[in-house]
């Protein structure tokens, strides 16, 4: 062992991990912030706006990204993963795998000349596959660090030993195919898990027709569609014909509160559906939205007022009842079939776009990470915590915050992140 350490490892560079790292850094504690993707920002960076203030998500996040990048106490490890952890509270030894970016972070200025020449086109993950990108790409426009990365799965040189055209057009000689994956050892006194969530794939619910009907999309796809920096420049158009959608259905609890899928409630969807419907109306006041829900769960500060505002000022109708199925007419308009709660009659509404509020789920690699860290998961594979000590995992010195422990909204994730920072600081000051 390397001996007692006062540093902290934070796993996950979304808003929770960022906030935990910033609090610890500001306290004067050294932080290693590990992010699997080429840039930090996480899910919050993918959202267009945030409820209940409709603040632009990236606009309030971006200053924190830059703060993290410039913080003298925070070491940022992007494209990195935790591979092995030994030791105990106060003295963990962690092996990090730093995957090669194949771009020199010091030299790259993110000008995009390389991407302009890259012949590869693949679906862009950040934009939920709604846009195609090159094999050399910025993870997203405002991403930090602000440099390109090469996608090793698709780069022609790395897969078939041909091309290297990016190298020829980079005036700063930043492309570096010699880069190797490397292992880095760090010694920390505490660990914070902030790995966030995956989303339920609704193609499993056949009756909703996701992937079969082009105008049935998920909430996160919708967020990218309506976002000014998204694939359509913020024009809310339906995927089938690029025409603006004026009637929109929001189908709640897709994969949540569902005994066949996830029994639990995803907590944030009532609110984000309301927000998404509001945004559509702000883009075009002709828009009419229908939200199909089971219970309206709007318990946070200003949330009920927000729902009331949606109903009053934004042309939103809330319809109680789980959507039974979605069909399609000959113009590819989704038709939502539902049971009217009061009359128990079957009814249907034809819309131009249907948005599925898919369940927030544990990360697919949560099991692997839990084994590496030696902590337990709950029955759903979220990181297990106790209601009375909600930030402590089952192993001393390892803490969890944000959606990796349970679906939570942004302010709760931030409060938990600060809280986990306090717990970690307690652990390293013992």
């Amino acid at each position, binding site marked *: 062992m390397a001996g007692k350490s006062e540093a902290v490892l934070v796993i996950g560079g979304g808003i929770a991990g960022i906030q935990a790292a910033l609090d610890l850094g500001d306290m004067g504690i050294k932080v290693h912030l590990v992010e699997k993707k080429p840039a930090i920002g996480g899910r919050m960076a993918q959202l267009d706006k945030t409820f209940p203030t409709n603040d632009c998500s990236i606009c309030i996040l971006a200053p924190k990204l830059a703060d993290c990048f410039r913080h003298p106490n925070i070491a940022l490890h992007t494209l990195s993963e935790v591979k092995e952890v030994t030791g105990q509270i106060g003295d963990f030894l962690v092996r990090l795998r730093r995957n090669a970016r194949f771009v020199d972070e010091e030299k790259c200025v993110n000008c995009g000349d390389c991407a302009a020449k890259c012949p590869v086109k693949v679906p862009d993950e950040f934009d939920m596959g709604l846009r195609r990108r090159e094999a050399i790409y910025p993870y997203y426009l405002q991403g930090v660090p602000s440099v390109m990365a090469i996608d090793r799965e698709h780069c022609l040189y790395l897969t078939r030993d041909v091309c290297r055209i990016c190298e020829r057009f980079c005036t700063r000689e930043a492309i570096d195919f010699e880069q190797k994956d490397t292992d880095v050892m760090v010694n920390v006194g505490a660990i914070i898990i902030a790995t966030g969530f995956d989303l339920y794939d609704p193609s499993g619910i056949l009756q909703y027709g996701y992937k079969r009907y082009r105008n049935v999309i998920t909430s996160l796809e919708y967020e990218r569609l309506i976002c000014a920096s998204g694939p359509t420049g913020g024009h809310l158009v339906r995927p089938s014909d690029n025409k603006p959608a004026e009637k929109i259905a929001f189908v709640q609890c897709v994969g949540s509160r569902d005994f066949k899928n996830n029994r639990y409630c995803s907590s944030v969807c009532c609110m984000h559906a309301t927000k998404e419907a509001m945004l559509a109306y702000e883009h075009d006041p002709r828009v009419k939205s229908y939200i199909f829900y089971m219970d309206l769960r709007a*318990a946070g500060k200003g949330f009920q007022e927000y729902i009331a505002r949606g109903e009053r000022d934004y042309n939103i109708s809330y319809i109680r009842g789980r959507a039974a199925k979605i069909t399609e007419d000959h113009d590819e308009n989704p038709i939502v079939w539902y049971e009217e709660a009061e009359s128990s009659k079957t009814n249907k509404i034809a819309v131009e776009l249907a948005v599925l509020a898919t369940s927030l789920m544990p990360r697919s690699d949560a099991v692997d990470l839990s084994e590496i860290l030696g902590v337990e998961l709950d029955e759903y594979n979220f990181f297990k915590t106790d209601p009375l000590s909600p930030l402590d995992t089952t192993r001393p010195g390892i803490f969890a915050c944000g959606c990796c422990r349970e679906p939570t909204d942004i302010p709760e994730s931030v409060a938990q992140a600060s*809280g986990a920072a306090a717990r970690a600081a307690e652990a390293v000051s013992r």
Partner: protein
Amino acid sequence: MKEVRVGVFICHCGTNIGGFLDVPGLVKYALNLPYVVFVQDNKYTCSESGLTEIKNAIAEERLNRVVVASCTPRTHEPLFKSTCKDAGLNPYLFQFVNIRDQCSWVHMQERERATEKAKALIGMGVARAALLEPLEETAVEVNPCALVLGGGITGMTCALSLANRGFDVKLVEKEDQMGGTLNRLYKLYPTGEEASKLVRAKIKEIEKNPKIEVFTTSEVEEVEGFVGNYDVTIRRGEKKRILSVGVIIVATGAETLKPVGMYGYDGENVITQLELEQMLKKGRISAESVVMIQCVGSRDEKRVYCSKVCCPTALKNAILIKEANQDAQVFVLYRDMVAQGTTYEDYYAEARETGITFVKYSPERQPVVQNRSVRVYDELLGEEIILPFDLVVLSPPMVARRDSANLAQKLKVPVDEYGFFLEAHVKLRPVDFATDGIYVCGCAHWPTNVSESVFQAYGAASRASIPMSVGHVKTEPSISVVDEDECSGCGLCEMTCPFNAIRVEETEKGRKAKVIAASCKGCGACGAGCPQQAITMRHFTDEQLLAQVIPLAEAI
């Protein structure tokens, strides 16, 4: 005077600005403004590459003033200021121009006129920038001692976390014992742990921690000072005592509404969930037919909000009644069952399996309690049902403590329309106040369950520990300054200042106003009111403001 060289950076903000204003037109306009030697537009000025461009231009173009026309200073001014600083330019030589919130967002449909407005704003910004002066921040020391107000589970958790880090903590509790609302609860959801057991364990931990000093039966009388150096007078009966602390955490909790005049509330046959907890605790529950009514005094016109904890509380108590008496009939009349997250949906399912009946009602057709029965229109059944009862249990919301507004005034922090304490930013600063050095957690901020109160308590402990860990805080130099030769010592400024940041003192030259630098927020109220015009706002001098008026007048 050194040659003034202004650089202007105009942000497209993706399409937030670029999609609605003629940015190339703005660039051309800015190039022709006096003192401007460099203009550049960026897709995102706030991105790392945008910031690098600013730094490079400061060096290469020898800029000594920087103007950024972009989104809003609310989120981005600190970033651009520190970028200037990194490049060796005094950050007070930076000027923000807001062309997104004030132009492209509010005038989306009027491209030309919005562009003209943006030009005027940029012109004003450049005119002021030319007159800006470098200012220096100063630092004040922070007393490494925290004051926690409230000895409930939230306050106790927060105090212990800070004490475990080595900070001194003063814990002030209004009642004669710690424990707060938990003292009135029986078992906690979802674990079924007894509240009293948790409270006892926490009190024991507090008592044996030498870093924590507890003051029971005590209340805050007066608060003076500023971040790092607060003097808080607390009163216990007639006895007063001043506590010197660096930071303050508000963990004063909430009350539960007493539903007087609602559904025949009488405290005997029609009671509240809190009163039921006491009955359950004493094992005194004989009712065979129980009807619970949710949203009593909440989600209505007066209190629009949902109190969040009442649905799980009703589930818990309904299950406890069933556990005690399998034959008891329990109905829960609800509007929306708020059982969020991974735990409570199962709890809800468990309640249904136990045989508890859930009846959805709508606010348009409220249940009616009359002659030992409750009449309610079942929304799902589509008909009215009549439920005879031995006991009705009402779920009224948590409301702000009656004295919260009073405490808020002493601390000079805001409360929301319901009297709950208002945080600095609803998304990203949930446990901070806008005032430095004061934090909030638990039900004082909004209804929360024990789990949420605990993580917020840790969150507030983290935030409060930052200035104490660093040992000092920097103070803004953009504050008011008094010209002692002009000051007549009239004291009007002292009366006007909302922050207690200016005081008239005896000096060698007679009575003169003095500014307390660390408290002054630079609001300008004193300067505006001074009959002698003896007060100048640094960074917002009359000359700087007047310079802005000229391009504005030209534009109109």
